[in-house]
């Protein structure tokens, strides 16, 4: 295995500072094809900054990123070309466009167009609101539309930024099933512990921008430093 070129996305010793604030410090993470990798940590731990680094919205002061073994300096408009799709925390939909049109913007395969968009909408169970405007839908439905738009590009790497935020139990169960069934690599930032523990193969825990643990859900659950970071007391 080590003789092969390293497939997937890798972050090596990434450090990001905003002025005097260290948002990420020496963070390394390997996201291998087909794996579901979660990033967790208390508020302000640097999870979204990590996503922004991969998307090119934040440029690290040091460290490097590789994609399939090659140096990768991300630019937002080139992500889709590299097969990376990202959902946004604030459900960034185009309100003046219908649900279908929103998803069509994400479709990149020539000729696939409407069929690919409907396929993604159906997969997310929102094909029935294709002609509605996102602003008229409840939050949970809009989040599904957001997912559909990301899936419509048929990404190799799907980046989900707090997809469970504001969802109820049934919706989160549905989301967990989708993440497990989706045949792409998933990088997940999430607060909802049950979701993270149930879908991830591997979890990175950040605290004040520093990586404090990396391992399987079982390992993370048993890690004292993680408990301390979350509960503020030595376990």
């Amino acid at each position, binding site marked *: 295995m080590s003789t092969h070129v390293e497939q997937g996305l890798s972050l090596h010793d990434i450090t990001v500072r905003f002025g005097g604030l260290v948002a990420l410090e020496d963070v390394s993470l390997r996201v291998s094809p087909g794996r579901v990798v979660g990033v967790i940590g208390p508020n302000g731990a640097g999870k979204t900054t990590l996503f922004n680094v991969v998307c090119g919205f934040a440029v690290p002061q040091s460290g490097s990123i590789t994609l399939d073994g090659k140096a990768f300096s991300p630019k937002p408009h080139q992500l889709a070309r590299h097969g990376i799709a990202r959902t946004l925390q604030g459900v960034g939909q185009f309100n003046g466009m219908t649900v279908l049109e929103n998803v069509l*913007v994400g479709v990149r395969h020539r000729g696939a167009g409407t069929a690919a968009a409907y396929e993604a909408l159906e997969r997310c169970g929102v094909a029935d609101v294709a002609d509605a405007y996102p602003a008229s839908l409840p939050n949970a439905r809009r989040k599904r539309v957001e997912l559909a738009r990301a899936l419509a590009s048929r990404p190799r790497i799907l980046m989900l930024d707090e997809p469970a935020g504001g969802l109820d139990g049934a919706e989160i169960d549905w989301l967990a099933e989708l993440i497990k069934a989706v045949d792409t690599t998933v990088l997940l930032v999430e607060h909802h512990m049950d979701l993270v523990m149930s879908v991830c193969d591997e979890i990175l825990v950040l605290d004040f921008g520093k990586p404090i643990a990396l391992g399987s859900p079982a390992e993370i659950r048993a890690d004292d430093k993680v408990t301390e970071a979350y509960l503020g007391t030595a376990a």
Partner: protein
Amino acid sequence: MDRFLYLTFDGLSRGAVYAAFALALVLIWRAARIVNFAQGAMAVATAYAGYSVANATGSYWLGFLTAVVAGLLLGAVVERVVMRFVDHSSPLNGVVVALGLVLIIQGVLGMIYGNEFRPVEAPFSRDAFLIGGVALLSRYDLFVFAAVGAVVVLLTLLFTRTPTGLRMRAAAFAPDVSRLLGVPVGGMLTLGWALAAAVGSLAGMLVLPTELGLHPNAMDLLFISAFTAAVLGGLDSPVGAVVGGLVVGLVLAYVSGYFGATVAPMAVLFLLVAVLLTRPAGLFAKAKARTA
């Protein structure tokens, strides 16, 4: 009554041109949140290009085509070279830069072509047919309706039926999200300016035969009328721009018909002030679109 009918058709014909020009203003407003005050001057510049080609080749249509293509190019150049670098923190910046462009374009045109009026012949007869004893429409009016109708239909198809149009709308709504989805936002903005300027050039070519002739300031009244139409329609709304254009055309026709042509420019300004005072968001503005 005959006079009223005649003026109504005359107004609709003028209004169609204002509608097209207003549509160009709306296109740029939606894409870049800039009111392109240079659009009249840009249309004049491309009209001179068309005029030169038409004179050299003897073909009105080649000149017409040249003006529209020159509009595409000039729109793209103005966006890439000038407007892209305007600081958007205050809406006034874009306005000032656009007004600067007007001065430059009109100055350069004056230097090259001089300041005299150069009459432009219409490609079709401007004599109205008699329908039921009333002179209503000329062949040229029909050409104007057909040309503006084609522009409206083509733009509607572009923005609702093609992936490119969809991406242009997406880029205008939310540039950052669009970038994440792989939309080349800068390219879409350039394309928007190019299309808008081409539509402006087309409207300019349509209005010229009905005016005194080509002159560096030939589109000033067209710009003010179309701007009034766009504001009336809410700046954000293509449908509003078309309806606004027709309304302004009718008002101008009635005012010049019943009170004299010299009063018409004042009537446009009066209408503009009235709309800004009473319905600054226009008749068709969507409150949602404003906050998005």
